[in-house]
């Protein structure tokens, strides 16, 4: 096995005391960055990128530099789950689905379990993705090339449809929320015509609505408003502060191996195509809900509802590095910044990287194994401390969260306008919850709406307006069909039941 030999060589490159030290530093920094909403992995890596320029002069230094940066990335991925579970504030788009069951669990006093499940499944997802990168890299890179605009649109359609078809809320409410999200996503420059849309002459609207600001407002501020209305509770929650919770949760986890496996596969596939971690997490959640025997309890604090999106998101986040290395297209903003780093060190990502810089590539892959193990150890030891945050009374923690949210919203573009925007989104979030409209479809549409629109219109341009392009080959045809099936799953399954019964 050539891959095993290369990988062993990679371990030899990566396993130096210096690199192990950098790994730990990177993970801790990354977790801190992930916890602060608004900072995010991409910004964190960008800020620390200059530190590595001096390291990149030698081939060994290049490996150390990428280990430091990618460990910050892993750390931020782990850290993103913490605020989603504790405060219902997702720090990254792919953490949104984690809030569905993670936050209810925390409110029931099971924050420790939720965090342990989230971290462990992150690790499992990432690990399976790294295994795939190790053995299937060349094959996988070829598969990604088959994705043109129609294929991309079909994937986004599948994400949207599976959401409408599987959600608990009335489908029409889901569609309404999604439409609002699409409208918000349309603000700013239109890629296809090069014209500004819905900006009404306000220069602040040129850049469109940033996902992070919307999410901090909708989830974070909205949640605080709701809690205030329910009456200020001066007691903190009682949370266990023992390491035992980790072991106990681990005992439960193996039962859910089917969900983990399914989510890993969804994640790897979405990461490679590259649909990205966000659709992966939503699809992982939706599919788990459909197939799990406990599907009905999803959204009320089911541990499986944490495992499914986290596993998928991390499998996707990790496998998204593959298209960056082999094709030079970054699958995520963080990957884009890493790409910048590679260029400064004199490494050009692309099909030749695997041929010409074997040491670097296999060193990086080996560091993915090691970095994730190191990351799991670091975050698990901190579970009791993070869970203990919830024991602080709401009257103290709420102002702190508000301040952190405001700082987070401000840092995204260093703009005061965004802070006000966050407040507006907070009110929208509150109203949505009062009227029992789901927030997730709005967020999903805001994140993926304009990419889906671009892909659709690019497809229409190249087919000169014929919709059959979405059935023009086996790949795109099967994804589109699957999407339509998902959309009409509810009516279809009840029809089948009626025919049988």
């Amino acid at each position: 096995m050539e891959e095993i030999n290369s990988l062993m060589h990679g371990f030899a490159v990566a396993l130096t005391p210096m690199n192990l030290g950098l790994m730990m530093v990177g993970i801790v920094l990354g977790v801190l960055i992930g916890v602060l909403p608004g900072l995010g992995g991409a910004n964190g890596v960008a800020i620390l990128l200059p530190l590595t320029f001096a390291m990149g002069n030698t081939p060994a230094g290049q490996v150390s530099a990428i280990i430091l940066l990618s460990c910050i990335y892993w750390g931020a991925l782990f850290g993103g789950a913490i605020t989603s579970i504790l405060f219902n504030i997702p720090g990254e788009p792919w953490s949104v689905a984690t809030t569905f069951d993670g936050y209810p669990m925390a409110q029931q006093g099971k924050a420790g379990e939720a965090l342990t499940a989230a971290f462990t499944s992150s690790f499992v997802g990432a690990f399976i993705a790294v295994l795939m990168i190790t053995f299937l890299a060349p094959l996988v890179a070829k598969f990604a090339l088959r994705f043109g605009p129609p294929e991309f649109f079909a994937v986004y359609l599948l994400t949207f449809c599976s959401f409408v078809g599987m959600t608990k809320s009335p489908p029409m409410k889901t569609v309404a929320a999604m439409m609002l999200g699409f409208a918000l996503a349309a603000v700013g420059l239109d890629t296809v015509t090069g014209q500004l849309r819905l900006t009404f002459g306000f220069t602040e609207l040129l850049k469109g609505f940033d996902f992070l600001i919307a999410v901090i407002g909708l989830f974070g501020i909205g949640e605080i408003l709701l809690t205030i209305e329910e009456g200020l509770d001066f007691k903190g929650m009682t949370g266990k502060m023992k390491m035992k919770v980790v072991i106990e949760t681990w005992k439960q986890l193996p039962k859910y191996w089917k969900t983990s496996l399914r989510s890993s596969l969804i994640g790897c596939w979405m990461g490679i195509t590259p649909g990205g971690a966000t659709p992966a997490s939503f699809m992982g959640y939706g599919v788990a809900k459909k197939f799990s025997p406990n599907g009905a309890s999803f959204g009320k604090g089911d541990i499986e509802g944490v495992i499914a999106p986290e596993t998928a998101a991390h499998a996707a986040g990790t496998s998204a590095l593959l298209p960056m290395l082999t094709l030079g297209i970054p699958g995520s903003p963080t990957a884009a910044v890493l790409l910048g780093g590679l260029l400064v060190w004199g490494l050009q990502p692309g099909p030749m990287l695997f041929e010409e810089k074997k040491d670097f590539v296999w060193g990086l892959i080996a560091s993915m194994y090691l970095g994730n193990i190191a990351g799991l150890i670091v975050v698990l030891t901190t579970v009791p401390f993070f869970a203990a945050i919830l024991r602080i009374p709401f009257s103290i923690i709420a102002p702190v969260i508000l301040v952190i949210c405001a700082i987070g919203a401000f840092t995204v573009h260093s703009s005061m306008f965004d802070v006000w925007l966050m407040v507006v989104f907070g009110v929208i979030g509150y109203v949505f919850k009062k009227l029992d409209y789901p927030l997730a479809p709005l967020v999903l549409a805001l994140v993926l709406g304009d990419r889906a629109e671009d892909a659709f219109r690019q497809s229409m341009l190249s087919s000169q307006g014929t919709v059959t392009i979405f059935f023009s080959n086996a790949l795109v045809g099967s994804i589109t069909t699957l999407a339509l099936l998902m959309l009409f799953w509810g009516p279809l399954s009840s029809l089948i039941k009626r025919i049988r019964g």
Partner: protein
Amino acid sequence: MHKSGPTQNRLSQFRRTLLAGAIAASIGLGISAPSLAWEPTKSVEFVVPAGTGGGADQMARFIQGVVTKHNLMKQSLIVVNKSGGAGAEGFLDVKGAVKDPHKIIITLSNLFTTPLATGIPFNWKDLTPVQMLALDQFVLWVNAETPYKTAKEYTTAVKAAGPSKFKMGGTGSKQEDQIITVAIEKLTGDKFIYIPYKGGGEVAVQLVGKHVDSTVNNPIEAVEQWRAGKLRPLCVFDDKVMPYNAKVTATQSWADIPTCKSQGMDVDYQMLRGIFMPGGVTKDQVAFYVDLFKKIQATPDWKEFMEKGAFDPTSLTGDEFVKWLTKEELRHQSLMAEAGFLAKK
């Protein structure tokens, strides 16, 4: 529409006071330091009016790396992407920062095309031109598995197929890639379907996957796919061939790519990679950055970067740069008017 105007003015006033103090101090103390009358007193924001990973972003992050590596500045240089509205966000940000010497911006052709296409209230004259760093070339690329060996063969095939059969992929809409596409159409009578994507790297990959038939990618966006034997360059949109003789693939160098003019397509288009400051800055402040970029251009790293991306290393400053900008603005105006890309008034 500048809601943040007053705050910024107050801030920059504050900065000016600080600066005045700093300058006074440095004059008082450091008469022995002969070269510079002004130096940054805090970190400098380096605005990129484009997304992460694109050509301008790569160059900005590379410059940041060179400055750190060779210790060319006491303060740090921080790259900030402001890509909203095809770069309008970045341009308006720098336009609003009048007299702020701690902000510079790297530009691409959207310096001209974005205001013309969208009608946003911005013109390059709102900024202070510092230096042209290089010109970026455009190359006509096809997939290496197609039979077209020359640009002539390709355009003949496009013509033979009839209108709207061949797909040209490019970055953005009504920007440089589409301007070149329209120019080709004017000269050859071909008609492409132009498909806009968000970034140059994505465009190159779409060509490798055969989702489009050709692109006009910059060299640096497509070079790795060329080296891997996936793409084939047909011609360069310049009046002379590129000067780099080192072999990029086993058999070819950048200098082996013929000009499009020699292939019967007289299209000559390069993209500006230049540095600007906000309006109202002093001569000394501009001089600092001119000097800084001179030092950057003297490093071996920069020369290597120029060759890797097959840039035209023409570098202009001062009046010559202004003259070049004036001429290019007129050219873009007429190119875009011909193509029907101007914003409706």
